């Protein structure tokens, strides 16, 4: 596949593991944004783990993407040559040592940040902190051993060693990418993490403005990943293990992502969250509050508004969960809740609409749960569906996730006049109950329930479906809310301002 290339572009989008290879909320948003500004020429840097982890493009590149490049952070090196022993650059070593000393004072200190900037600058090709030294030099080895002895609470040296290697190695890839990237007038990152690091580095070395839009909170999502991941071993024995304490290696990852997030925050302006709770979280994680703001996702309401007329007068007793069948969506809680719903209303149905190919074991577990609860007649796995086809047939959009940002399915339901029962994650409370006084005055557009509580979820759904007056009130509030606060035009206007400000920015004034 050949990708467009160019000598320069207006805005560089730095995307980590999303558009155009992976479908999902962020990818859809990126697609929307690029299409919304045909007047800007976009360049895309896609960062992935390994080439084989991705298939083909899931989205065609819009015409105003003039440059596309992809980099894989964990690509295997092609060289089979045996590396040679070396001492390592003393200047680079001193820089790293200075950084480590500064970091020992605590994560939030300006001196450490300056030391970090000095190091990352030298990580670019031709600098004094080179990957080969990190991998093969005696100085690096001594640094690793020294830090293991001083800090590592996990007994396994080999795991510590490889964690260090895997953690830092991508930074050199990114340093090279930053140096060789084409001329752009502004950089826009869709997350912190490695993408945010690259954005920060571009801003640092080129003096271009950096825009950061965070949909989730990278460090938090990584934390969930890290909690779940079995590949990070915990080598403490039964006497050393304290279950309330994260394993040292997990903590290392979290601190690492927190730190590179901080690096991105101190360069980025504006720092945009999807919703208020996340904005506060960014501030807590080190983002300067005066640069933060929220711009919620918006949808094209006209796509869904005609569907309102297609619905039968009363709410259909159909609860629909739209999303991938993966553990983070907690499909099982939905299935358990359906048992209770069906006990009360035998005519109720539960639909699960979303791809089932991502985590086949989990899908199988869900199907087994449906069977063991005797719900084969009431629950259907529909696979991928057109949302417009579903909306007129359902009475509630259900969201049982244990983690979300700003779920578009709720807004799409709202636009079609379908209220929701959602767990209290991400922006769901804001979406259901309203944010400020004016918003809250519209009334609730559904019910918020705690996570992993099938009983409460079922009761809330039954209450709405069983009371047409309440249902219609919620439906009206839903329509009003989405039209007032969550349309795409609103979102496009606000991002237009962001881009205009960035593109008129005179370089070097920072």
């Amino acid at each position: 596949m050949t990708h467009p290339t160019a000598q320069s572009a207006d805005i560089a989008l730095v995307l980590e593991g999303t558009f155009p290879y992976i479908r999902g909320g962020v990818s859809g948003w990126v697609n929307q944004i690029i299409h919304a500004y045909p007047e800007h020429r976009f360049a895309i840097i896609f960062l992935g783990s390994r080439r084989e982890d991705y298939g083909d493009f899931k989205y065609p590149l819009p015409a105003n993407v003039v440059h596309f490049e992809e980099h894989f952070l964990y690509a295997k090196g092609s060289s089979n040559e045996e590396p040679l022993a070396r001492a390592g650059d003393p200047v680079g070593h001193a820089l790293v040592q200075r950084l480590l000393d500064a970091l020992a004072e605590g994560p939030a200190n300006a001196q450490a940040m300056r030391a970090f900037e000095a190091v990352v600058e030298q990580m670019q090709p031709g600098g004094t902190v080179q990957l080969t030294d990190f991998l093969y030099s005696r100085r690096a080895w001594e640094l690793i051993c020294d830090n293991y002895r001083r800090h590592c609470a996990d007994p396994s040296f080999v795991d510590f060693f490889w964690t260090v290697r895997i953690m830092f190695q991508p930074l050199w890839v990114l340093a090279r990418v930053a140096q060789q990237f084409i001329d752009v007038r502004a950089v826009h990152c869709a997350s912190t993490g490695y993408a945010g690091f690259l954005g920060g580095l571009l801003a640092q070395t080129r003096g271009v403005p950096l825009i950061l839009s965070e949909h989730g909170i990278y460090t938090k999502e990584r934390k969930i990943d890290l909690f779940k991941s079995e590949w990070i071993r915990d080598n403490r024995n039964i006497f050393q293990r304290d279950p309330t304490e994260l394993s040292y290696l997990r903590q290392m990852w979290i601190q690492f992502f927190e730190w590179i997030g901080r690096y991105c925050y101190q360069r980025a302006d504006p720092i945009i969250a999807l919703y208020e709770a996340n904005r506060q979280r960014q501030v807590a994680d080190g983002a300067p509050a005066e640069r933060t703001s929220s711009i919620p996702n918006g949808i094209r309401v006209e796509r869904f508004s005609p569907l309102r007329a297609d619905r039968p007068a009363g709410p259909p007793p159909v609860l629909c969960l739209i999303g991938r069948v993966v553990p983070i969506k907690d499909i099982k809680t939905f299935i358990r809740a359906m048992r209770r719903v069906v006990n009360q209303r035998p005519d109720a149905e539960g639909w699960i609409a979303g791809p089932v190919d991502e985590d086949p074991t989990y899908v199988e577990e869900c199907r087994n749960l449906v069977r063991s609860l005797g719900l084969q007649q009431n629950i259907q796995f529909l696979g991928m569906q057109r949302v417009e086809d579903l909306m007129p047939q359902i009475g509630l959009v259900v969201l049982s996730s244990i983690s979300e940002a700003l779920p578009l399915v709720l807004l799409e339901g709202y636009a079609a006049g379908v209220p929701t029962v959602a767990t209290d994650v991400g922006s769901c409370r804001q979406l259901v109950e309203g944010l400020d006084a004016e918003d809250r005055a519209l009334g609730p557009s559904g019910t918020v329930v705690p996570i992993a509580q099938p009983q409460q979820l079922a009761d809330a759904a039954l209450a709405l479906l069983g009371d047409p007056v309440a249902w219609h009130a919620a439906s009206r509030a839903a329509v009003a809310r989405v039209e007032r606060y969550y349309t795409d035009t609103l979102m496009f206007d606000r991002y237009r301002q962001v881009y205009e400000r960035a593109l008129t920015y005179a370089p070097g004034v920072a």
Partner: protein
Amino acid sequence: MAGIGFELRHLLRRNTLLGLVQAYAYAGVIGSGPWVLSIVGILLIGILSASVVEPATLVTQFQTSVTYLVACSLIYTGLAQLTFTRFVSDRLFEKQGRQVLPNLHGLMVLVLLGAAVLATLALFVVLPGLGLLYRLLMLAGFALLSAVWMLTILLSGMKRYKAIVVLFGSAYALIVVCSLLLRPWGLEGLLGGFVLGHFVLLVGMWLLVVREFPAAPRLVAFDFLQPGKLYPSLVAIGLLYNAGIWADKFMFWFFPPTSQPIIGHLRASLIYDLPVFLAYLSIIPGMAVFLMRIETDFVEYYDKFYDAVRGGGSLQFIESMRDEMVYSIQQGLGQIAKIQTLAVLVTMVAGPWLLDVLGISRLYLPLLHVQVIGAGLQVGVMAVLNVFFYLDQRRTVLLLCVLFVVLNVVLTGLTLWWGAPLYGYGFAVAQLVTLAAGLQLLTRRLNRLEYHTFMLQ
């Protein structure tokens, strides 16, 4: 948000360290042990036949012929010894034991074909105009010895030391008995016994190997020649090591003042050879200690070291296992030194008497002393090389082998040019310098063992 899927599991579990610590054993170098046995056998035959076979020159001719067979076949098979042992241990590591037998047969085919071609050429070039039976027996002897060395290497790689010793012992007992019975037929009789004995030895070893490895559907295979499975450095090491050990002997044989023609174009150096053979007998206790130390203490800590590296031991534990490895090497070398010193002292005391018994002039006593010391140093060199093999430092071993060959040739040449008082010093000094260099490199390597293990693999 998708983010980069945490597909790191594979990366972390890839365990590149595994590739490096493939626990293969290089008893290859130890394989030189059996030829000590063969020297004993040759000497025995000589002593037992000396009074019976007439004229006495026949015995000398026999011993010289056999010495050439042993030397040439060792150097020749040196090409294949180490790389094939490595091939076998790699396959065993991969649990591909089935591939061993067909490849062994493939190797045998190649070795025997090569041996036949080389020996046939030699019959016309080196042994022109001699009796047909003698020449045919030489050809058979060369081919059989080559095959025997290959199997010896294979079996010692599998740590079947006891079986090797038992087989060699019985084969040489058979050879001695045969030579006693066949004495009346003179040179051909003695050589016939030698060939017969080795044929029996070869069959015995082959049966042992066949029993050891699972049968395979293929009879013959040549996988060991595939790129990546053939280690050029090991081919070179095997050749150089054996050539190095024999270089000084050949130089003495073909330097007119120190040698005389024996049979055909074969020459021998009576003044040099017997002290050399005697000296090699003195290293038997040293070899035994060396085997014990390396294969027990050292390997134990070697395994613990790499288990700790792979299995998530703490750095402190890894370091202390490294220290234990170093300590066991020090202990082993120290014990070898003690034993060899003892052997030197014994030779010093018993030397005059020994020379009298063998009918050699006491003028050569100083030569015997130097040879004993040189042979003792060789045990040390072998020990160091073996440790390097365990650490998979083929480049270092190659370097040491080159150093040894060059030194042995140059220094022996110098001593020949200088004259009798320095005979034997060439070999001994070459061993000494190689040992010193080897120890120096080993110290450096062991001091940085963890660094090399983690960072450079």
